[in-house]
């Protein structure tokens, strides 16, 4: 029994994409009426829902608030039905906490927090179906939700995963490709300036390959940013049409 062939000779991956092609991305904003901002994003079969509240007064202990900036509070969780086997512990396990921390760091880089001293912005993300690229989908969904909530940001934050199979970088890995044991790198990028908000990799990679991999991830993120841009503009137009009449 041979393992799955991640890249065929003709250049096609398991699901028929070429090495640099992204999965189908669909998104909608303002799905939640109660929240300040919300968005639902599908990247292939990975579905993420992001909800933003704020800026509001710091909840809990007053000491957590910063005198000159807003505090960004993120919580990441996966639905128990999101993976192939039912997840026993959706919150509070180590991976979720680590993801939450990464999201927080990513958005602290992008949101103009100086405008809201002593307040708190909450971002809640939930994965409804996990098929690889969880972190990327979260970041993209949260970006849309923040834009929807009207919180000022420097730029979009787009994220994408990239992997390596025998000298070819692959963009946007699905679950089978991630768990195949190869390297996988997650990159969160501010596309217009090309600044990297977060770069994460849990594998062993030789130095020579790193540049190619980052290049591939950056190109993928820029492609993704176009899609997100279209969604936002479309939504703005819809809303303006409605309110104008």
């Amino acid at each position, binding site marked *: 029994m041979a393992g799955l062939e991640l890249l*065929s000779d003709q250049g096609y991956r398991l*699901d028929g994409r070429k090495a640099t092609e992204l*999965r189908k991305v669909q998104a909608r904003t303002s799905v939640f009426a109660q929240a300040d901002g919300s968005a639902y994003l599908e990247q292939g*079969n990975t579905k993420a829902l992001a909800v933003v509240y704020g800026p509001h007064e710091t909840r809990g202990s007053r000491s957590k608030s910063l005198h000159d900036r807003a505090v960004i509070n993120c919580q990441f969780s996966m639905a128990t039905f999101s993976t192939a086997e039912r997840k026993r512990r959706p919150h509070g396990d180590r991976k979720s906490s680590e993801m939450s921390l990464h999201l927080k760091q990513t958005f602290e880089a992008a949101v103009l927090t100086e405008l809201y001293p002593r307040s708190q912005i909450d971002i809640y993300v939930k994965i409804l179906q996990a098929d690889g690229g969880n972190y990327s989908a979260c970041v993209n969904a949260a970006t849309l939700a923040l834009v929807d909530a009207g919180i000022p940001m420097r730029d979009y934050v787009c994220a994408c995963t990239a992997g390596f199979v025998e000298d070819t970088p692959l963009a946007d890995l699905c679950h089978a490709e991630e768990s195949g044991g190869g390297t996988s790198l997650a990159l969160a990028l501010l596309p217009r300036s090309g600044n990297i908000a977060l770069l994460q990799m849990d594998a062993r990679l*030789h130095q*020579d390959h790193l540049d190619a991999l980052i290049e591939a991830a950056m190109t993928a993120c820029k492609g993704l940013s176009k899609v997100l841009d279209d969604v936002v503009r479309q939504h703005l137009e819809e809303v303006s049409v409605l309110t104008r009449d």
Partner: protein
Amino acid sequence: MLKSKTFVKKTRAGGVLKIVREHYLRDDIWCGSEVCKECKDEAPVLQEDACIESNLCSYPHYLIPDTNVLLHQIDILEHTLIRNVIILQTVLQEVRHRSAPVYKRIKDAIHEKEKHFYTFTNEHHRETFIEREPGESANDRNDRAIRVAAKWYADHLTKNTNGGSLKVVLLTDDRANKEKAEQYGLTVYRCEEYIKSLIGNPELVDRLALKPDDQNEIIGSKLLFPEHLPLSRIQSGIKNGGLLQGTFHANRDNYLEGTVFINREGEDINEVLLQGLQNLNRAVHQDVVAVELFPKERWVAPSSVVLQDDSPNDEDAEEDETENKLKGVPPDSSVLKPTGRVVGVIKRNWRPYCGMLSQSMIKEATRHLFTPADRRIPRIRIETRQAANLAGQRIMVAIDGWPKNSRYPNGHFVKNLGTAGDKETETEVLLLEHDVPHLPFSPAVLSFLPKMPWSITEEDMKVRADLRHLCVCSVDPPGCTDIDDALHCRELENGNLEVGVHIADVSHFIRPGNALDQEAASRGTTVYLCGKRIDMVPELLSSNLCSLRSNVERLAFSCIWEMNHNAEIIKTRFTKSVINSKASLTYAEAQMKIDDTTMNDDITKSLRGLNRLAKILKGRRTEKGALTLSSPEVRFHIDSETHDPIDLQTKELKETNSMVEEFMLLANISVAQKIYDEFSECALLRKHPSPPPSNYDILIKAAKSKDLDIHTDSAKALADSLNNATVRNFPYFNTLLRILATRCMMQAVYFCSGMDSDFHHYGLASPIYTHFTSPIRRYADIIVHRLLAVAINADSTYPELMDKHKQSSLCNNLNYRHKMAQYAQRASVAFHTQLFFKNKGIINEEGFILFVRKNAIIILIPKFGMEGTVFFENKDKPSPRLKFDSEGPTLEVEEHTFHMFDKVKVTISVDASNIQHQRIRMALIEPVIPGVSVPVPESEPVAKKAKLDC
């Protein structure tokens, strides 16, 4: 367009998983044909005029084979005549799933540009993707996908080529599929009728593999093997412990016996004996089988009988009498081994075999028996029309299947190698049988060689130590052109000695990853046959640029020690360097220089210093328990005109051999330590596991027969007892004992330090060891060079070097190649020995008994360093009385008892009755036993021999 593939899988724990995967359909998959105007393919593969001379399809056409055709008829598809074939992705994936070797071969065929094979990704093409209908099985769905793709191709080509004479032909053997395809409007043929229609090339028909349904005619009537169990039963049997899984190894000497080595560790039973054709149940050497153990009462001992399957005709009746031969001897309960029978085959490991055709008695018959050169493979029945042409030739045959009512497996002819007995052919057979890559280096590989004239550049000099002033010399066998190593020794001002070992810097020329490197890694080692050498790296490097020839500047990798006069190492340093060897000496020349007291030049002083130190080092090693074993190595003197061997000579070891060896060992150990310190996870090392005590049984018994004790608890104990094991008036005894000891040893292997924890080298009594000193002829040394270069910051790493899994699989390949090279070398020596004796006629020599068996004795002739068997049971003579005692072991023939190490006199001749297995026949002269021994032959007139010499 996005579709989704959903299927349900069972997990190992018994749960159920639903897997959902995306499946994208594309519009940009081209058809690959030169002719097509619609597809914007930049590099179309399929040709416009795709004509093969066939009386069925006289128009240009492309072939589409289905899965079973691809799996079974791979030999035909690999033939150069078959071109312009479309391999569908569905078919390719199924092949990958079912048979990895066929998958590899079809991929190689696809890569060959001249064959114009195109892979069409039909699963992702929007128009040819189909979903499984409810109630349709997976196989039916795949067949339907193949039909839909073929139809699409037919329509697409007709639409987009004007004229539209280019057609598509589907090849399938499945009747149902064929009918449906015809209904669908496709041109479809069965593989057999298509191949037979290729009137221009009838030899393709021979390559047709016979399929199970077609084999109704080719079966015997009597013999029935028990049915093999289906895979599901086997798996459940293994799970609940009723059946055992293992690899089947046939017994080379006895075709009715075999052993299955059980894979699982920690089991008390790791070998199961199988005796008798019924119990062997069609298992072929190296298949993975499932065995069922017999209850203890039915366990038998391995037979010490030597049996060959010599039956001239393809009949089944022989089997019963041979079974009786085995059962005749009452089992000795102490050596009973677990016995069982094969109930099913899990995986077949068939490959094409070399051998010869034994023609059938019937002249017009097309079915013949093929006897493989490898004695562990059973004979194969093939169907061919060219029997007359193939009579005296060496051919290659592949096995197709073994139906349960057939005495022999069925197969088909693949290739003709040449006349049997002919030196070229035999060498070719030898190399093929031992899987030694020996084709000439491809242009791609040669393109990475440096351009001549080559010289050392300024940049090279900058990063290297300049040691050209040192008095370096090399000592090698006569006629050696690939000089790997050179040594020097000189006195320092502080009274210590500086000793240097300089090894050819091959890693400078062979950069990682390129075609030259990959080819060398695949070959693994240089194979030295008698009179021929299969190089691992092209000759430009091995004999010229890398070889440390005298009086030329060469790049080297040096290991320099500062030692005191007592051979204790004070400092070690490694550096890349440039040297200028002052002399390339042979062992004999070097010895002469050392011994000649009148010579006092630098080279001689250096040699004397090295010699002295070497002796001290050797003494120290022996104290630690290093073993000095013997093997009867033999060298041939090849006649320069006929290239036939004139004389055999045993290799003599001089002091200088030992001197070079000591320093090479020291270098290897120093380098091993250094690379392990630097890279604990991925250092390539060599280990020699200590043998299990049971391996020593034969040695202990042999020594006991002369009332001597051998202690095997540690290497030192063994070395000491071997040194003390002498018998008065029998000087050769010690050598014989050492030869036996060699047979008890395990094989030394390469391994990756991150994957193993036991590093000990038993034979050299060293805690760590590697190969560093021969990069020209061993690939492992090149890897060690690269690691050492990184360790001293003379080079950079690359990904594969640091990956311990890749290194581990590289080690496995190197070990395999090394083993095969050794077997090939031995086989080459055996072949040349036979050639030598054929020319000589019958000669008589003295020898010693090495092993005693139930019906034969195995004799070692020290003069020629070869072994032969004296059988006591011959077909045409009445058998003498035989009594075998396994304690001694001794064999009593009539009145005389043979013990191990008895001296005998025998005649040596070549039995050329079987061209394929020409055997050295030995017959007993002394001790004289009536009815058994043969008289002393007339000695050859000396005059004849003289003529040969000139």
